[in-house]
């Protein structure tokens, strides 16, 4: 199971160490509908949360908040 940071780092193709609260999720490469859908599915698969709001988060901090509030998958 991957952590949220590992999921985002994998999608963004950057080292996990680069993922902090301010890490932008609307950057090129992460802003496609394919990547957003993959992010939602990966959160469901690895963290057991159904988080549609993940597709709207603009920073990692916002994403963490959304996942925390998301219902179980």
């Amino acid at each position: 199971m991957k952590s949220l940071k590992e999921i985002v780092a994998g999608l963004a193709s950057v080292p996990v160490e680069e993922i902090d609260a301010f890490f932008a999720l609307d950057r090129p490469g992460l802003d496609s509908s394919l990547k957003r859908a993959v992010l939602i599915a990966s959160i469901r698969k690895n963290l057991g949360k159904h988080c549609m709001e993940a597709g709207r988060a603009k920073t990692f901090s916002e994403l963490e908040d959304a996942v925390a509030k998301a219902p179980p998958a």
Partner: protein
Amino acid sequence: MPDAKPVRVPQETVNDERVRLVRWRVEEGAPVEPGAVLAEIETSKSVLEVTAGEGGFLRRAASEGDWVPVGGVFCYLTVHADDPVPAAEAGAKTEGPAFSRKARALLEKEGVDPAAFSGMGMVREEDVRRHLASASAKGVRREPLSARKRSENAALSGGGANALRSLAALRCSEEAYRRAVERAPAFEATPSGLILFEAARTLKEFPLFNAYYADGDAAYYDGVNVGFVVDGDRGLRVPVIHGADSKTEDETAREIQDLLLAYHEDELNVERLSGGTFTITDLSGEGVTRFDPLINAAQSAILGVAAPEGGSFELCLAFDHRLHEGRSAAAFLHVLKSRITARA
């Protein structure tokens, strides 16, 4: 030297000017019986055995690999092992490649320098044609296609090779589509999932679009399995949602997301990539405002979703005219459009 009987290269094929001595089958100076195989020669058609017409001691006049004119002497048969043989005849071998008559004629017709074939043995007509083709293709670099692309081509060729392909397109309001997606939050991350969802239900109304042409018959599928084209880092793939007509919006949206994740992780297996009965391809993200998608094998239609232009976008339905007509394609599109915009 009346006792040295020349053995000449037979005219096995009228196309050859000369042949190559491939291999001796008898040692120098060894006795041979009538009918014994003396050597193997290569003509433009094949490798042949040359046999002795009479007995004697074999005296070689050429070496393995030499080219010898047809009718030329390549060995002698002498009465005694040490009988002398004519020196002049032994020099019949020639240098450089040999050309079949057709190859020679083509060379002369096209003005090709025979030196272009130096290093070759027998040059045949097809060798000259290949040389001409490569010469005319200068400035072109050829690379073999990937296995994935070949596989993709095979699938698409299967659907399109014999189909009477036709295309019908219908414009759909961008605003109505946006509102419809807003009212179907499950598809927020994958808006075209809404089109897939409604297309699956439209297929239930138009089962012929969920069929394919088979030797004069319409082969109907029992299930509605809708594939959607993904073309990202992993190349072009068409994952399939099986039983798409019976899944809820949430189930459909989740399955699309799961399939996209499997694509991203390169874990799409055969089961998830096969069994499609209809396909949707979305090029709206690429800014393409109209296109004519290729029908997949064992299907009769594919729906293309184009990019908005002037406040609307096109739904492009490519179909096999052996099963459908423009009118039925238009009816399918109108129903699909109504199902989408009715949500707005």
